């Protein structure tokens, strides 16, 4: 059915309102009261829960409901990511608003019997706050302090059904733009809202639109950058999988504002589920006349094409990305000219990130002032972070700009795993830096993160504890940059390789103080002379770790030890009094440097030890062999 006017869109919205009626009631009812009501069971379909078996849970639920004759009254859905990946697979039951964590196959029958038939919450599946042992059925501590704008529909609507998106005010922002606003007003709204690029750079979105609009040309393009390449980041993926229409709507609005009739979504080939959801969403939008000619009865024509990446991190850089769309090697080119003047096939092009575009419809609907009232002075709105690493609650969080790292890591994240001590938080992926504990109370925004040597990046937030070696972490990121450097400019191609070699030398205990100076000097040269963002930011992980964790570098260089006990070549193995004299380690030692008689404590000759760790691997007695 093609929608030919805004009235038809509104009629469709009213008609389908019932789809969402039972979800997120402002006054949830009790589980007993909900017994007679139509109910929704939402099974998280995010990447984490999917991997831990949520599709199977949804299938079993449907079977069980069928068997108990409840399939009419209780509907099962698989929306996008709930965010709380640590406790997956998760399910939510509405209207009584109950969340169950770590649901396994045998729990399904229990939930149906106890909760859905008897009306009693299954206590043991509710989230338990580890310190207080308190159980939560709703408003889990993980969600307190979060504000969902970009993720507003993720985990709430069924992403493969455009009607649910329309029922949740979907395409209303587009309608209001086409009906009431000219393109300059739209650009003005986005400028006033203070929205900045969420892909990492933080360039003001409205200004980017304005510059593209001002360039003289018959054809202009809008590109959605969905090449989320930071290792440890999955924010954009969750939006694409959980709410693909919000990205399409954002692109339509951007397209109308800059005067483009054609848009591209450049998405990673590594995200097959996101690709499938986008294909479905684009197909549905075309069927409803929301893409194509004369959208909603206006004279606006716009279509979107999907383009696939092929595994090159540098293609997240906008000029590389455009070369890749053109079918070439994804190498960057010199700016200026900027894409806004000469971009894809030489035409003015605006490249926006997934999360940026998902923010556009709510800004249009609720107004620039509303958006600008959230956040800090220069960074408005919210930011989605993929919180991972050594934190209790791994997951996706969306918080207002200005929230502190401490709030994210210790309140939402529940603190550090296994009662260890926080050492650093890494933001911005291979382009970012490591932030030490003294900056935990820094309010997060673009400027404050840059000031402490890191960057906002696309939103990866990796937490590290005392058992992580910062030199090794820097080496890990450099390995990534060496791998992903496209080879176009010498500073990045050769420079990152040299940095990596020096770091390897240090982790092997062969480093000198001179190497430390070399790292800093070379790092600065690479930053200054690289062609694109990849090279310009590649030394950040080294420079920030040298700045904040110099002692660790010095321990590797001067004392030849790795304080965190990670760098293998620097470990000293030692047999303790726990040894029962089983002789296994002595038999396996390739250097024959372990001596001792059976049933007595053995000894390692540290002079001859190769630090290979074979003895420790073989040892069956806890604590008998330690490294220090």
């Amino acid at each position, binding site marked *: 059915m093609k929608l030919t006017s805004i009235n038809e869109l509104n009629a469709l919205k009213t008609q389908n309102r019932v789809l969402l009626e039972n979800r997120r009631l402002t006054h949830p009812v009790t589980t007993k009261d909900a017994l007679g009501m139509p109910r929704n069971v939402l099974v998280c379909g995010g990447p984490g829960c999917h991997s831990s078996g949520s599709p199977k849970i949804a299938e079993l639920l449907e079977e069980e409901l069928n068997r108990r004759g409840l399939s009419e009254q209780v509907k099962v859905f698989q929306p996008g990511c709930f965010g709380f990946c640590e406790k997956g697979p998760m399910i939510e039951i509405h209207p009584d608003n109950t969340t169950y964590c770590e649901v396994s196959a045998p729990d399904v029958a229990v939930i149906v019997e106890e909760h859905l038939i008897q009306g009693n919450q299954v206590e043991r599946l509710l989230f338990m706050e580890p310190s207080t042992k308190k159980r939560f059925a709703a408003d889990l501590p993980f969600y307190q302090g979060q504000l969902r704008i970009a993720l507003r529909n993720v985990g709430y609507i069924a992403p493969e059904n455009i009607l649910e998106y329309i029922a949740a005010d979907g395409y209303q922002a587009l309608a209001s733009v086409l009906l009431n606003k000219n393109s300059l007003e739209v650009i003005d709204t986005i400028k006033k809202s203070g929205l900045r690029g969420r892909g990492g750079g933080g360039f003001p979105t409205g200004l980017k639109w304005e510059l593209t609009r001002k360039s003289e040309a018959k054809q202009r393009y809008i590109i959605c950058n969905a090449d989320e390449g930071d*290792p440890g*980041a999955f924010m954009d993926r969750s939006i694409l999988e959980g709410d693909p229409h919000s990205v399409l709507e954002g692109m339509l609005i951007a397209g109308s504002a800059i005067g483009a009739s054609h848009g591209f979504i450049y998405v990673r080939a590594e995200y097959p589920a996101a690709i499938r959801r986008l294909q479905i969403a684009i197909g549905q939008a075309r069927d409803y006349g929301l893409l194509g000619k004369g959208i909603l009865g206006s004279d606006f024509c716009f279509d979107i094409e999907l383009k696939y990446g*092929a595994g090159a991190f540098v293609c997240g850089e906008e000029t590389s990305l455009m070369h890749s769309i053109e079918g070439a090697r994804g190498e960057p080119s010199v700016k200026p000219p900027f894409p806004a003047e000469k971009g894809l096939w030489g035409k003015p092009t605006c490249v926006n990130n997934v999360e940026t575009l998902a923010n556009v419809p709510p800004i249009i609907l609720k107004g620039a002032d509303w958006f600008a009232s959230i956040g800090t002075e220069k960074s408005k709105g919210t930011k989605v972070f993929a919180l991972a*690493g*050594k934190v209790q609650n791994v997951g996706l969080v969306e918080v207002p700009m200005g929230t502190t790292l401490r709030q994210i890591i210790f309140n939402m994240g529940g603190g550090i795993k296994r009662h260890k001590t926080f050492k650093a938080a890494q933001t911005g992926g291979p382009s970012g830096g490591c932030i030490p504990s003294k900056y935990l109370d820094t309010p997060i925004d673009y400027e404050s993160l840059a000031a402490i040597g890191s960057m906002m990046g696309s939103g990866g937030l*990796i937490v590290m504890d005392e058992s992580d070696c910062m030199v090794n972490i820097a080496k890990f990121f450099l390995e*990534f940059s060496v791998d992903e450097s496209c080879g176009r400019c010498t500073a990045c191609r050769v420079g990152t390789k040299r940095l990596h070699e020096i770091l390897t030398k240090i982790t092997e205990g062969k480093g000198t103080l001179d190497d430390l100076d070399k790292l800093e000097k070379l790092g600065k040269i690479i930053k200054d002379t690289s062609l694109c963002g990849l090279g310009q930011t590649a030394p950040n992980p080294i420079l920030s770790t040298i700045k904040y964790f110099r002692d660790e570098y010095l321990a590797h260089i001067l004392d030849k030890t790795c304080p965190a006990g990670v760098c293998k070549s620097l470990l000293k193995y030692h047999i303790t009094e726990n040894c029962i004299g089983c002789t296994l380690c002595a038999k396996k030692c390739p250097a024959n440097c372990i001596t001792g008689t059976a049933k007595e404590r053995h000894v390692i000759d540290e002079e001859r030890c190769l630090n290979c760790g074979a003895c420790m691997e073989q040892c069956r007695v806890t604590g008998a062999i330690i490294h220090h």
Partner: protein
Amino acid sequence: MCDNASIKDPYRQLDEYIDTLPYKKENLIGILHQAQELFGYLPDKLQWHIAQKLDIPSAKVYGVVSFYSFFTMKPRGKHVINVCMGTACFVRGAEKLQAELEKQLGIKTGQTTEDNLFSLDSLRCIGACGLAPVMMIDGKVYGRLHEPEEIRQILEKYRLEAMPEA
């Protein structure tokens, strides 16, 4: 009954796909995705074929194939094991997992076992950070892998499946 007519020549299938595209040279990456889907990998001969079909230098095709890590010029094993080397998995022991797999399979990352059953590779983040460290075998994700024994059992399952039925 044999139905040889319906077994399509993959070259012809690829040509038919290319013919449906509204524009071709600009779609090189999409075409290579399709070709790798059909053939499993992109040998020289296939790159030549694509170059001729699109009327572009084969050096350009090779340049693109070698640039993107998703494309492979070597045949892969029956099952592709990918160890996630995202930061979250890294800090939770992905290196150990990778070393253990290399040990159990007797190959290095990037290689294929002699019986062509497994290829071992790494990739950057599959978004299952809550389950770190993880590996993916042909799209199926296995998480929280800390014990060598667990890994052995998973590999054994694939080996058993591949055994001809007695």
